[in-house]
């Protein structure tokens, strides 16, 4: 029974990357992969608590323009797997998950460097007119994606979750506690990256408004999002009305600058 779970977990981890970088059904968002992990491991409650923890850590983290970010989805799978299998708690899941999620950044970069060679190979095959072969080389992409997350997961599964928790027991408490603290701090990186990506200078008042509504008035995020939607609607209508009277088609070049890194 456990061997079937082991294999399913490894397949889930590998498929996750193919899916996230492909059709985006399962995604690598912790709550969804955590749900599947819960189904496989037969402990929905623990899996969802682990997933929720990593999901909140991940808010604001977006892989924009090809940037690599910590893989909190992989952290969820591996963390929940170890926590459920050994019956140890959420802290174990975090202590295992965060390092694995970080390691995955390097693996993603490595995979995309290898994909560079694949791209060149495909270009050469096109020039040579070997199109059947070119299309076959395309499958290297999904294979690499699968391996990127399946391999580290397999390592942990085969090393045995008990071995992992044994190691964690030797590790001093301030490190595991420190990683939990880091979990609360890490969203800041994603949020700061997002702010760099958005036209912040132009719309700073809205950042302050969102902050005040949440920090002082404790409004739930969906309420704040709806207020933001209202503001967005008002802005859109205003700007369109402003640009319409002069029917000359003005080409908007200046606005693009905001999105350049």
């Amino acid at each position, binding site marked *: 029974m456990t061997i079937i779970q082991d294999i399913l977990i490894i397949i889930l981890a590998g498929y996750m990357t193919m899916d996230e970088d492909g059709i985006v*059904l399962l*995604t690598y*968002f912790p*709550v*969804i992969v*955590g*749900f599947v992990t819960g189904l496989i491991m037969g402990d929905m409650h623990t899996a*969802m*608590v682990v*997933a*929720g923890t990593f999901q*909140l850590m991940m808010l604001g983290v977006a892989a*924009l323009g*090809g940037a*690599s970010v*910590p893989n909190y989805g992989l952290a969820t799978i591996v963390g929940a797997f170890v926590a459920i299998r050994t019956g140890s708690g959420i802290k174990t899941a975090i202590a295992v998950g965060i390092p694995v999620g*970080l390691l995955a950044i390097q693996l993603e970069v490595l995979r995309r460097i290898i*994909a560079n060679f*694949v791209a060149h190979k*495909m*270009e050469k095959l*096109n020039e040579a007119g070997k*199109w059947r072969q070119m299309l076959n080389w395309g499958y290297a*992409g*999904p294979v690499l994606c699968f391996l990127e997350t399946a391999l580290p997961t397999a390592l942990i599964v085969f090393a045995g979750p008990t071995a992992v928790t044994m190691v964690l027991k030797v590790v001093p408490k301030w490190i595991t*506690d*420190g990683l939990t*603290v*880091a979990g*609360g*701090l890490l*969203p*800041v990186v994603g*949020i*700061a990256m*997002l702010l*760099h990506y*958005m036209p912040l200078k132009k719309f700073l008042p*809205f950042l302050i*408004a*969102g902050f*005040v*509504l*949440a*920090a*002082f008035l404790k409004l739930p*995020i*969906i309420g*704040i*999002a709806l207020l*933001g939607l209202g*503001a*967005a*609607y008002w*802005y859109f209508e205003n*700007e*369109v009305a402003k*640009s319409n009277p002069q029917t000359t088609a003005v080409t908007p070049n200046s*606005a693009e600058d905001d*999105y350049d890194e």
Partner: protein
Amino acid sequence: MTNKENTPKYHVTKKDLTRTSLRFNWICVNLFNYESQLGPSLVWSMAPLLRKIYPKDEDYKASLRNHFNYFNTTPYLTNLVLGTTIAMEERDGIKSLEAVQSFKTSIMGPLAGIGDTIFWVLWPTIMGSIAGYMALQGNPFGAIIWFGVNILFNIMKVWFFHVGYNSGTHLLDTLGNKINIFTEAASIMGITVIGALVATVVKVSVPFVFKFGKVSMNIQTDVLNKIMPALLPALFTYFIYKLLDNKKWTPTKIIFLVIGIALLGTFCGIFKA
């Protein structure tokens, strides 16, 4: 642009479009590389259909060579772009390649702006916080809804491909001006939500107790919270935001810095898990 062709033209069918869209959505970022980014994925997904459009080997080769070029925009909206380029190449054949390339180059910036803001900032942030807080209670309901919406998104992506084919250039031309306004409007919503995230998701507290003789003072509850709620998260976000201005501080380095600060702070007893 419309010139009479000597070779009999292939008529792209609806099935062709759906199939090519599915091929693209399946391979998508799987072939992402740092040099041409989505280039190889475009080639891989469109090759079978382009073969039908270009019966001559040399034309086919030139068209693929064109699509190997650098391209990157939000995958959801790439469907719109590819549908349009298919229509252009079907109509004008090999003569369209230059127009195809400049269309792709000019549209990917604005589309990435709007697509990333909606599909990678707004949606996962709002859905993620709702589903995330549900999950903390052990409740998978938010996750199931999210998965359901992803299915709808996939139907939408295929639909985008058809829209691109049927009215791509026309649609994107008329949108022209409005795309930027729409992106800005969506950014307003995004920035408002991010402001809320700073206050709710970033968790730093310093339950550090100062003792002066008999008077003890908890830094977090007696000092910081009295100034304003979520003061430390706000300051910390500002610090990391400024740090990102410096090109030497890549996000990965900053992540390790943050973990370092957390470990050190916990070791010294400033932070508590």
